[in-house]
């Protein structure tokens, strides 16, 4: 079977490449929007007097993660078709992955911002920075590495979940796995699994590096990652 897998990969480079690109597209769009909304929500709920809201939002986000992906896809398909939108393929999968990706990003944004040393915020305010300037010049730069760590977590997690998206026609590496199951061709399953894993590992390494680069120089605690 190993030999078959090897031969299959050798003969189908272009096809696997295309599936990988599809997979990456889903991940990029989903996690891009997860970062966008997650950071906004995280900033919003970290505001003064919103502790209870923050707890609620993070509670909801953690419940979201416990919903099995197939159930979420099904659920979203229902909603999307009711709204008259394309209910299979790319869209529902991207929405589902965005929802999954929110938790680590909201949580990390919230934690990073609320844990900025209050002395620093007081110093900033006392010197005449507006709240927006404090957010933009003090809180966010300090939160960036933690937010990036959340993104990294979300991406690695979503690469696996995205494979299941092939079941509702979103394409990607999951397609290999589902074809392998449907036609009982184990080497297809193995190929799909291998590439999903490789993608996860690559993304993890790459984002680790990005995380380090995004960390402001003065707070880097270790050497070059």
């Amino acid at each position: 079977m190993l030999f078959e897998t090897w031969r299959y990969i050798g003969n189908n480079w272009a096809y696997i490449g295309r599936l990988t690109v599809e997979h990456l597209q889903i991940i990029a769009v989903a996690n891009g929007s997860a970062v966008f909304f997650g950071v906004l929500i995280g900033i919003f709920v970290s505001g003064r007097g919103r502790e209870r809201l923050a707890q609620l939002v993070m509670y909801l986000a953690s419940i979201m993660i416990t919903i099995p992906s197939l159930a979420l896809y099904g659920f979203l398909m229902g909603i999307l078709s009711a709204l008259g939108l394309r209910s299979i393929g790319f869209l529902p999968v991207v929405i589902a992955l965005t929802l999954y990706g929110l938790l680590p990003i909201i949580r990390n944004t919230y934690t990073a911002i609320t844990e900025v040393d209050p002395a620093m915020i007081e110093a900033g305010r006392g010197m005449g920075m507006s709240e927006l300037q404090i957010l933009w010049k003090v809180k966010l730069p300090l939160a960036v590495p933690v937010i990036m760590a959340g993104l990294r977590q979300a991406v690695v997690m979503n690469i696996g979940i995205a494979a299941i998206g092939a079941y509702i026609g979103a394409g990607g590496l999951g397609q290999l796995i589902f074809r392998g199951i449907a036609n009982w061709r184990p080497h297809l399953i193995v190929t799909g699994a291998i590439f999903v894993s490789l993608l996860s590992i690559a993304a993890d390494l790459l984002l680790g590096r990005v995380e380090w680069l995004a960390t402001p120089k003065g707070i880097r605690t270790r050497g070059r990652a």
Partner: protein
Amino acid sequence: MIKLEDVTKIYPDGTKAVDDVTLEIEKGEFCVLLGPSGCGKTTSLKMINRLISLSQGKIYVDGRDVYQMDVNQLRRSMGYAIQEIGLFPHMTVEQNVTTVPRLLGWSKARCRERTAELLDLVGLSPPETFMRRFPNELSGGQKQRVGVARCLGADPPILLMDEPFGAIDPITRERLQDEFLRIQDEIRKTIAFVTHDIHEAVKMGDTIALMRDGILVQHAPPAEMLAHPKDSFVEDFVGSDRALKALQLMRVRDVMDETPPKVRIDESLETARGRMQELGVNFLAVVNEDERFEGWVNRRVLRRSGEQVKDVMMRYTVTGRRDTPVNEALSLMLGSAIGNLGVVDRRDKLIGVVTFRSLSEAIQASYSEDEDPDEAHAERETAA
């Protein structure tokens, strides 16, 4: 310059943190807000730049009600330094120091120039080596210096400082206090400075505003507060050793005897004994031909055998200067064999002597001078 008028702060839970405080800080005055923790000193300070809102009363800066001003502009016009320093770890020393100038839109070149100037002023030189460093590359004392430089950033006429030297070891703190006094001598800012350390208050302040339970108990120059504590609380707070603390406010020039009994190093023992008899003293300072201070003789050493003073004298090289604080002089005297202190000028010429007697006479004189009830009363009036 800064005026608090019947200022009261009541928190929503009913706590009165500051109770009807009226305080005026003159232009160029270094006013120390002093008191035990929870006395309202920090609250009072933070009401000046509106970090804490006031419940009643008015605060004026340069005659303008702070609540009539834009809050961020108000804050940018005052330096602000806190105990935790609160340097931004993701910014270089230069960026930290120019926080306010950059908010005010200064040009890059001007910011750089100002940073160099300030780092030099706070003793971080050469500035070029420190500018590009990050706070985590600095020692505690250096961070504190950057904190001071940052609060001077845009050259504000007013500084608000909340225990800015609180979080460092005593030796570094002592040095920073000295340097800050030197800086203040140069820049003459109006300063409100919070501390709970009476030593720091006495050392640094032109005036001390002592608070308890939100009430301003006494606002007076340190010497007056030490000599005339208004009530038993002030007396307790300044401590039973307040006479000793007052010593650090006096200089050797205030207490020294400027015509000390002395003998030249090459005069005979006979002459020395005669002079001692004649002047009715127990010691003579020994000087050389150029009036340079060499040491001491007393009755005991003059009983030894020898020809000239230099054969028997006690050579003693510890001396004071005119501007040595008297507490230091006292400590030198206690540590010396003779119990006196020779005062010399820059060329080691003897210009005076401090003895225990001259010391206690000077202290008593300063007390009775202040004792004039009208004058003391009038001073308190202006202070209040």
